[in-house]
């Protein structure tokens, strides 16, 4: 029972990170119907920027942790958002209205490019960061010796995710920007006829997705303490899996899918084998899609004849 609880906490933490990345996939897919394969790389870039900011602050002597974290989040979000904007502008916008597979290929190309760009500029070796936030709350201390603990960093990750999700849902449902986004999602041509600046709306979608991915990247850095240029691929695939599992195009679906993938992975590693955790996650995706072809929370596809 204690073991189960501990795994649950770990799973929710991992799921939160996946969920934050998945939102970027789901929003982009919702609005222009493409798989943004480079999004995993955006996440990786976010974590690298966060690391560089951390080191730069340490070098100039700023060590007050809350301030450091705040600056890390802000700078990482801004710079990563710039990356997101640039990628959209360079690789996707010229192909708007073209064949569906063309942007998919540029996305894969971008992903290869970014991975190697970071490898070339920052080196191929893993970057370790000693844990910055230590300690936590002991929830249960059973006589069998298993301690159930939720660490501060886990609390921060989960809280941050909840706050960002809530803010984001509000943004999409209440603001004019969110309304424009939803309009573009429904019918881009009509939206542009009604005076919505479609290009700008799509750019902002990428910017927001990249911002969230940057937060996820920073959390990943703080939580695991090691990053390398390759983390984007696997996290990206998992997050996209999460987005599809939850029902692509749906924000709560992305979060739910992220949690589901995080929990599946953690429990599978905890109770069965670490090696096959990816197999478990992907198999469950396949099974869910076969029985619920539009994911957990996706709109069911009505075949229009």
């Amino acid at each position, binding site marked *: 029972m204690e073991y189960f609880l501990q795994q649950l906490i770990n799973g929710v933490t991992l799921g939160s990170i996946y969920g934050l990345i998945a939102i970027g996939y789901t929003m982009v897919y919702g609005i222009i*119907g493409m*798989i943004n394969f480079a999004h995993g790389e955006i996440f990786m870039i976010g974590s*690298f*920027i966060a*690391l*560089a*900011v951390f*080191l*730069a602050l340490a*070098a100039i002597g700023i060590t007050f942790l809350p301030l450091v974290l705040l600056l890390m989040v802000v700078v990482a979000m*801004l*710079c990563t958002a*710039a990356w997101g904007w*640039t990628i959209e502008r360079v690789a996707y*916008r010229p*192909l708007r*209205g073209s*064949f*569906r*597979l*063309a942007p998919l*290929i*540029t996305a*894969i*190309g*971008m*992903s*290869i*490019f*970014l*991975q*190697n760009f*970071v*490898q*070339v500029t*920052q*080196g191929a*070796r893993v*970057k*370790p*960061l000693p844990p910055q936030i230590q300690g936590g709350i002991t929830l249960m201390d059973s006589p069998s010796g298993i301690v159930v603990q939720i660490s501060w960093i886990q609390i921060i990750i989960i809280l941050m995710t909840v706050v960002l999700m809530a803010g984001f849902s509000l943004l999409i449902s209440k603001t004019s920007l969110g309304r424009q986004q939803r309009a573009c*999602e*429904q019918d881009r*041509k009509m939206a542009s006829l009604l005076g919505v600046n479609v290009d700008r709306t799509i750019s902002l979608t990428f910017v927001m997705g990249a911002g969230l991915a940057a937060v996820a990247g920073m959390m990943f850095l703080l939580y695991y303490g090691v990053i390398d240029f390759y983390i984007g*691929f696997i996290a990206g695939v998992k997050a*996209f899996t999460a987005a599809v599992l939850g029902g*692509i195009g749906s924000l709560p679906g992305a979060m739910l899918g992220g949690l589901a993938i995080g929990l599946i992975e953690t429990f599978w590693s905890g109770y069965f084998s670490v090696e*096959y955790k*990816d*197999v478990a996650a*992907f*198999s469950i*995706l*396949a099974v869910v899609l076969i029985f619920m*072809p*539009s994911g957990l929370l996706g*709109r069911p*596809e*009505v075949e229009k*004849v």
Partner: protein
Amino acid sequence: MANTTTSASADRPEGAERLSEDRREAMRGEPPFVEAPSEDTRLVRALKEAGVTAGLVAVLTLFFFLFRTDIAVGGLDLSLDPKSWIIAIAIAFAGRFLLTYFVFGGERPTVGGWKKVAAKTARWPIGKVIGVVLLLVALTLPFLLMTLLPSQDRYLLDLSILILTYVMLGWGLNIVVGLAGLLDLGYVAFYAVGAYSFALLATNFDLGFWICLPMAGLFAALWGVMLGFPVLRLRGDYLAIVTLAFGEIIRVVLLNWYDFTGGPNGILGIPKPTLFGLEFSRGEGSFSDFFGLEYSSIQRFVFLYYIILALALLTNFVTMRMRKLPVGRAWEALREDEIACRSLGINTVNVKLTAFATGAMFGGFAGSFFATRQGFISPESFTFIESAIILAIVVLGGLGSQLGVVIASVVMIGGIELLRNLTGLQAIFGAGFDPTQYRMLIFGLAMVLIMVWKPRGLVSTRTPSAIYKEKKTIGADLVAQGEGH
């Protein structure tokens, strides 16, 4: 269907759609009656644009060029490299300035400026001529190389073998993606199944290449059906992610099932192919011995070259033939409109499965060839990046175009290899410059640029599979791209 897709399919007929879009594109720029920008504003504009670009590049590369993280004693160290950061910014500024000032004439480049729709021209005879020439070159290549470039023949022949392997894989995937319009991101799974089937059969049961080859193909086809059956009901991108997942599952299983696959160590000692029992080695009973030739290791390369050429040509022949058969026509019809297919009494599940299985089979053939060529396989050869490269070859070549796949393979695979040899650049960038490091970086960038330049691929016309009077090629703007559009 999701909303995005219904709107797309409601826009049929596509010809009219294309036309209206072009008109809209044409109207997007400045109205024609506006005077051309004077020299002065043009300069200012160009400077402004260049400034914005340089600023953006400064932000983007800030943490990659200026700050570098290095592993040092006791953790990480940060080093500053302002020189390369400033150089990057300067290049961005100059490049954008020149581009804006001279190429775009001070105008902001519109999206329309990039987009070029392939014109509908009867390019068919040229295509055929190129095809015949390529075939002749391919058939005589080993001898051409041996006579023209004897110093590099082994290396170039090996490269040709590699390119032909990708041509074959591209042709195999072209059936699934190009003809049937099913987006498969896990094609490498079948390549792996083929390679491992051959390797395991050969090492465990002592079977030769020629017996194992068809079996490996059949195994791969079987896997195609097994994996395809549950997932082919899915549409478009759902299919893509599930195929990607299957590709990863197979790789992870290969990696972790030590007893069976050797795990990350892979399988060693895979036998080389023989010519009717003649081995390509030194001594008694070998090829050179039998024909009274002097032994040379290049003989084996030539033999391998002809095997992959024959396999690739077989793939091409079968595909071309199938296109003219009902099943191939049904693939293309499926890509155009699945619902219409069903309304004509076509069992779309079967049609998809045949496409999947046929493509998988050729992937399996290529896989067993790969195994026999290398003599060693491990899961590392079957990562997602392989699937991505094969898909890129198919899309860059032009969906459904056999010739396009060849051109794209030569450009992409040959191109990557060329980059490996650009050691001459060290003279410019200093001895620390390692061109292989930039290989994949340039590869990724090239994928983006080629796609932006030619979104419909290099060869983007479709040849009809049946003609009444006159053969007319069909422009790519009319051809659908399958599931989900």
